[in-house]
């Protein structure tokens, strides 16, 4: 099972929920930081890093001597990452999406594969939790290509070691966030019961609903603000899987980069219960799918 932990905006406690959930999970579990623009799950899990590698994407390199300026590459590329200006062909590797189309279409075989570095993938262990993260290269504009590399690596780790994965997804509802949650079995939406929290929660719920995955809410800093989120959840039938109270001790633990599930027996219970709720949600969805099949 793959669980992704998402939120409509940053700062709702998504990462601390991911870390705590991983710490109480039973059986082999992989904690994955897919928030590649600002990865911070490692700050909570303090993993021992076992390895790292750079991830790349193919970008075009043009051999001018072979080029007849037919314009085919230029007409094909909808991103204008390659442009035939009749006297020369210009490439903008940072705008390339790596589809390989221009290389395939060039009648003169004048375009070869160069590479653009996307960032770094690293992995390790934190206690019994397997850890995996991606970190985008400074200056790299696109997250999804690196995220796909991280997900492919996760696929290999799951094949080799089995178990479940808990993904810390990028905040928001744009392409990277969608890319992170779209192939998970359960989506957790972490939010705060404040007007801003509600606004972003609703956006996220609308953005992820089309993927037809079981979704549940985790209310962080419960007791703050108002009950708009709660009313929305009951209207739309979104289960509230856990409520984490607004509490000074928790805020302090969080600011020290500690796993909040490890700060008190009550909180540990909250996360153990959350784990049970997630597993029940996944089973329920599985049964529904089987019934429809």
């Amino acid at each position, binding site marked *: 099972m793959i669980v992704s932990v998402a939120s409509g905006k940053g700062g709702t406690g998504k990462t601390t929920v991911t870390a705590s959930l991983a710490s109480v999970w039973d059986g082999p579990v992989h904690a994955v930081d897919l928030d590649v623009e600002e990865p911070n799950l490692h700050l909570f899990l303090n993993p021992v890093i076992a390895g790292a590698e750079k991830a790349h994407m193919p970008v075009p390199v043009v051999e001018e001597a072979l080029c007849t300026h037919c314009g085919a590459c230029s007409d094909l590329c*909808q*991103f*204008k990452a390659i*442009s035939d*200006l*009749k006297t020369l062909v*210009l490439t*903008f590797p940072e705008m390339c999406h790596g589809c390989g189309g221009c290389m395939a279409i060039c009648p003169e075989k004048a375009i070869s594969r160069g590479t653009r570095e996307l960032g770094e993938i690293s992995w390790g262990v934190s206690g019994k939790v397997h850890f995996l993260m991606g970190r985008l290269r400074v200056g790299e504009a696109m997250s999804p290509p690196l995220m796909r590399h991280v997900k492919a690596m996760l696929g290999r780790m799951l094949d080799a070691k089995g178990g479940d994965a808990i993904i810390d997804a990028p905040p928001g509802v744009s392409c990277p966030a969608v890319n992170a949650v779209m192939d998970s079995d359960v989506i957790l939406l972490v939010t705060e019961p404040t007007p801003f929290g509600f606004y972003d929660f609703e956006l996220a719920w609308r953005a992820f609903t089309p993927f037809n995955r079981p979704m549940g809410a985790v209310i962080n800093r419960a007791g703050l603000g108002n009950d708009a989120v709660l009313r929305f959840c009951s209207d739309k039938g979104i289960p509230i899987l856990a409520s984490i109270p607004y509490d000074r001790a928790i805020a302090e633990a969080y600011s020290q980069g500690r796993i909040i599930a490890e700060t008190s027996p009550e909180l540990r219970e909250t996360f153990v219960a959350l784990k049970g709720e997630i597993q029940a949600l996944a089973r329920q969805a599985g049964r529904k799918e089987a019934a429809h099949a």
Partner: protein
Amino acid sequence: MSKIAVTSEGPSLDDLVDPRFGRAAGFLVVDLDTMKTEYIDNGQTQVMAQGAGIQATELVARAGVSWVLSGYVGPKAFQALSAAGINVGQNLEGMTVRQAVERFKAGGVESAQAPNREAGR
């Protein structure tokens, strides 16, 4: 024969200079010797999500011009125009295409050394 392209809101010399380059309505290509004009519509480029400046550069490069006169040119377009050996005259908004061409002919337009617009605008 020397040709220049002016970003234009319409197909005649009396239309206003379009201040935008990549997302200009069109380009009026003017033959400086004969003052004959040819209009290139840029409507397809205007709606592109990205790369409008580069697409526009392709259009004017194919028309064989040595200069582009416009209002603002962004960094990608500037890079592409420079690479194609096309000079850029900026800050020519707020006048007709004819006035811009007259100013150019009178030597009142300098070849810009840097783009005058930020990326992504």
